[in-house]
């Protein structure tokens, strides 16, 4: 145990008046720029509008979930079941498509299942007071389990014409529907988190739920809404992913939850709750996307890439802490 005096408390989501170069988002942006420049020199195929456009698919499905997850983590909760919600929602869409539903019905089905699954998580967490990490480890098995029960070793791959637009369509030139949706959602989530009373309440709950309760914040209702929001975004991601790969197996989106959490934490959101910004998460999405794309250009297998993603996650958090400790010792 070190006996240092606690650091003075700052409100981390406001633009700092001094020392902007030490802000997390700025460091992260620098990392992104370095990766971008390195990749453009290292590979002749990197600086190509079409290739870069393809690269955005690495994160445009995960990032919307990451935005909602950022809200949840800031509020001191977590949802590990998001990938399983994708599987469940995709299975529902597959079943509906097999029954002859059109694209519009499929989208509604996918999103509705996502919301319902999120609401279930929220209900268990707020009504039974079960820690969200335990609840969502349970529903992680349950939701994907239902998908296995329905599908077994089968595949849904009959999706109606027109449904492919969400995952494969382009709004104009190289800007895919997914990428445009990502940008729109980034703006919406940033506005809600940073400019509304709802956003302030989310921070309040994360910093001190008891104080928030006594200040008149309906803590449980907001928690419930946040789980529903995360379910909704998982449903949206499911529509995009299902539309892009045009098939549903129970193993769809396996491991997404870890990448989403990595994205959020890499974006500077405190895993213990109370601080973080959407801008950080957006930059983190780009960092991870650029990194994955760059590795792909050099034929680095995905599993080896995960070493670097993992090291990045630990490194970006550890380095400032270790650096700070060394600096303090040096000064003393």
């Amino acid at each position: 145990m070190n006996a240092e005096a606690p650091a003075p408390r700052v409100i981390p989501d406001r633009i700092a008046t001094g020392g902007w170069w030490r802000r997390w988002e700025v460091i992260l942006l620098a990392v992104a720029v370095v990766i971008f420049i390195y990749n453009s020199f290292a590979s002749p195929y990197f600086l190509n509008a079409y290739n870069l456009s393809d690269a955005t698919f690495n994160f445009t499905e995960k990032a919307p979930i990451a935005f909602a997850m950022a809200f949840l983590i800031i509020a001191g909760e977590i949802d590990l079941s998001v990938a399983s919600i994708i599987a469940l929602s995709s299975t529902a869409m597959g079943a509906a498509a097999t029954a002859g539903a059109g694209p519009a019905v499929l989208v509604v089905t996918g999103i509705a299942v996502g919301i319902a699954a999120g609401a279930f998580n929220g209900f268990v967490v707020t009504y039974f007071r079960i820690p969200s990490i335990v609840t969502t480890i349970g529903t992680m098995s349950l939701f994907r389990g239902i998908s296995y029960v329905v599908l077994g070793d089968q595949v849904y791959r009959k999706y109606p014409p027109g449904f492919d637009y969400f995952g494969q369509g382009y709004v104009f030139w190289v800007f895919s529907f997914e990428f445009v949706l990502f940008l729109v959602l980034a703006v919406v989530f940033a506005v809600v988190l940073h400019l509304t009373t709802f956003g302030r309440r989310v921070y309040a709950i994360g910093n001190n739920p008891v104080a928030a309760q006594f200040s008149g914040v309906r803590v449980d209702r907001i928690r419930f809404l946040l789980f529903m929001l995360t379910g909704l975004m998982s449903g949206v991601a499911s529509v995009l992913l299902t539309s892009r790969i045009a098939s549903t197996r129970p193993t769809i989106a396996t491991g997404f939850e870890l990448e989403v959490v990595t994205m959020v934490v890499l974006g500077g959101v405190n895993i213990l709750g109370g601080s973080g910004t959407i801008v950080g998460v957006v930059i983190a999405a780009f960092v991870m996307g650029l990194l994955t794309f760059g590795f792909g250009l050099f034929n680095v297998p995905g599993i080896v890439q995960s070493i670097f993603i993992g090291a990045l996650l630990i490194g970006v958090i550890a380095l400032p802490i270790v650096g700070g400790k060394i600096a303090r010792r040096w000064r003393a």
Partner: protein
Amino acid sequence: MRLNRDALFGALVFVLIAVVGVIRPSFVWPQNLVGLFNDTAVLVMLALAQMTVILTKCIDLSVAANIALTGVLVSEANAAFPGVPVPLIMLLAAGIGLLLGAFNGAMVWLVGIPSIVVTLGTLSIYRGLAFVASGGTSIVGHQMSPAFISLPREELLGLPMMSWFAIVVIAIFAVALRGTRTGRAFYAAGGNPTAAVYTGIDVGRTQFVAFCVSGTVAGFCGYLWATRFSIANVDMANGFELDVIASCVIGGVSISGGIGTVAGAVLGAIFFGVVRNALPVVYISPFWQLAVSGGAILAAVIINSGREKRAGRLILKEAAAS
């Protein structure tokens, strides 16, 4: 009161086995039950190790990746030097596991990163390294020495060595968690970190030790896993960390630290083993397995939640312990 819960849960597991036995009598033949325990041995050991970590308010998501990396490394060591005696290989496995666990623990203790973030990172790193170490291929049975593969299967007093390993590990944990200073420190560090600090317990160091324990057991299980299926590759034990944590949760280990018993964790793991082995026996498609585990986890924690509420809730979670 905790004993009471374990007894109730034990009775439930017993009833479950009995019900399956009524439907299919062959399920409760001693030989089958021994096989069931043997099948669950790895999960039992890992659940106990994971409980130690959870007791200190941490979580170790990297155990399955640890199994993969250690399993690949010791299998390669065995393939390269078939003459090295197997006990030495087992020591090597535990040693590699210890190193991997110690890295997690050091990050939590010395750098102060939350354990969920650290082990989320090392989960990717260790499994990635397993791919690099194996060169993307599998080390299969005929490359391993016969002694390497057969040791966990050799029988002693009618039980395979694999089961004996689990029994020894259960005994060590039962004694160590109850009767040693470090064992009690795990409970104290998670139950009330602030009070633990004032009692002179170094909470961070205790968490470090817990991660070392978890890593060592995982490494040892890496060897067992490789021999069990006579294959070692990057996909070993994929996703198994969740089964391990789920066993703890079902067994009544509180994720907020400080609460959990050896009996509970063991029963939680055995419950998993029973469900997994019973489904095909009663002609339920194995595809139900995941949904049933998920339902069981939720049911267990919802039943538990009533008890923990009565015990009074901690409001100031980590006030002074950092």
